[in-house]
């Protein structure tokens, strides 16, 4: 990856410098109070390199991704705005991309999105005008060619580093590395993967990616997260789409006394980070600690990932 920088952003900079990146997902508030967003960001600013603002994850409505980005770019936090294809069509999405870049968002993660049936408003209409790959390609057209998908010219192109998801833990297994190649071809610069609880499976996948020559083409951040309890693990693997948690992990939590399960969940997370750090082709971790954000500083510290590189620019 020798071409020139695509953005002025911190995340792209540290990845290109070969530093191991740490990103985390903020818990979007069910609230109109901006202070909740500011407080969480302040707590985590020194332990991660960028914040993801999720876009209705699990098909549940929370404060929107673009508005969280609007609040936090004002404080010069490096942001990853997530765009899901579930709720907006191509006209709305391209407008949001321009607005996000104008506010100083340097990274956009393109995902298909959990289906409406996963959330608390399953009667909603699903949009899916794009899939994640078409979304990636469309934003790339905007950035690299300075035009909308229709060909209409932009007077200033959005300078964004393009992210995509990857889920090696679900079938069709042999297709997953090839689909990653498709995402790279569409424009993915970096990947933030689904939760990893199955390190051997990740190793196999990364080897397949290596054989295809993909390691040099994309920065791969492995998704990790602490499990709160045995019950939470069971809920996640049965109810949350795309999450694979092997029996060993659930059993390990089950054998731990209830009051110490949260601590054990954190320890498992730290162990997984230590293991994935050693895998060829892994460039960082993406910590998803839904409603357990207070654990993120401890996880980053215990995994030996402090101090984080200094931020010398915004976005």
């Amino acid at each position, binding site marked *: 990856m020798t071409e020139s920088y695509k953005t002025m952003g911190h995340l792209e900079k540290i990845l290109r410098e070969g530093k191991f990146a740490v990103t985390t997902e903020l818990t979007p508030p069910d609230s109109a109070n901006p202070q909740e967003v500011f407080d969480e960001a302040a707590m985590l600013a020194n332990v991660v390199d960028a914040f993801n603002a999720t876009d209705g994850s699990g098909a549940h409505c929370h404060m929107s991704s673009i508005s969280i980005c609007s609040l936090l770019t004002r404080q010069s936090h490096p942001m990853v705005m997530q765009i899901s294809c579930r709720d907006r069509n191509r006209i709305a999405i391209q407008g949001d991309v321009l607005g996000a870049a104008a506010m100083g968002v340097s990274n956009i993660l393109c995902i298909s999105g959990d289906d409406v049936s996963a959330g608390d408003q399953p009667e909603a209409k699903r949009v899916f005008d794009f*899939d994640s790959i078409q979304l990636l390609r469309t934003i790339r057209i905007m950035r690299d060619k300075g035009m909308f998908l*229709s*060909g209409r010219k932009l007077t200033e192109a959005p300078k964004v580093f393009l992210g995509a998801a990857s889920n090696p833990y679900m*079938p069709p297994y042999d297709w997953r590395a*090839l689909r990653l190649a498709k995402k790279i*071809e*569409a424009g993915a610069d970096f990947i933030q993967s689904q939760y990893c609880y199955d390190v051997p499976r990740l190793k196999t996948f990364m080897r397949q990616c290596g054989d295809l020559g993909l390691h040099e083409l994309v920065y791969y951040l492995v998704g990790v997260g602490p499990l709160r309890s045995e019950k939470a693990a069971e809920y996640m693997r049965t109810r949350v789409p795309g999450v694979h948690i092997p029996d060993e992990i659930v059993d390990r939590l089950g054998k731990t006394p209830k009051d110490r399960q949260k601590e054990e969940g954190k320890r498992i997370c730290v162990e997984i980070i230590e293991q994935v750090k050693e895998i060829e082709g892994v460039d960082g971790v993406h910590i998803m600690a839904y409603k357990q954000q207070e654990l993120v500083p401890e996880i980053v510290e215990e995994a030996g990932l402090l101090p984080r590189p200094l931020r010398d620019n915004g976005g």
Partner: protein
Amino acid sequence: MGLGRWIRDKPAFLERAYQVSYATIKWLRPLILKLGFKRASRLILPVERFSKRLLFDCKMCGQCTLHETGMVCPMTCPKHLRNGACGGVRSNGNCEVIPEMRCVWVVAYERAQDMQIFGPEMISIKPPANHTLTNSSAWINKISELDQSAPKGWAEIPHNPVIEKKFLDEDS
């Protein structure tokens, strides 16, 4: 639906059938041009709708990609993904949205393994669906090349040279 299901499990046969029907449509092109696309559509649409619904549960998107997606209709995916599979697939290979249904893209990938001619096309990126073509004849749209009409910006992006060398050259 017995016949439909039986024949769907014969992807190698289906891709040959696709080749034959494509050749037939190309052969009929002068006649279709003489009739005009509108009139030809009126004749062809009922046949196309009946046969493709029976065989593929076709949703009449008007831009058929069947041969590039393992002879499985991507519009039968509840998220209408034309470049699947998504990350929501269940560990048993079933759909996130309809738990009792096999994921359309798991099936597509399996069938593409048996397809010598078009199987490798799974890797090509399909452009966003053109919703103005919904309920029109994909066969006519093939001849008029309307189905190739991706948005203007779409073709502007060059292939990634490494990916192109790895997949697109070898496959051709």
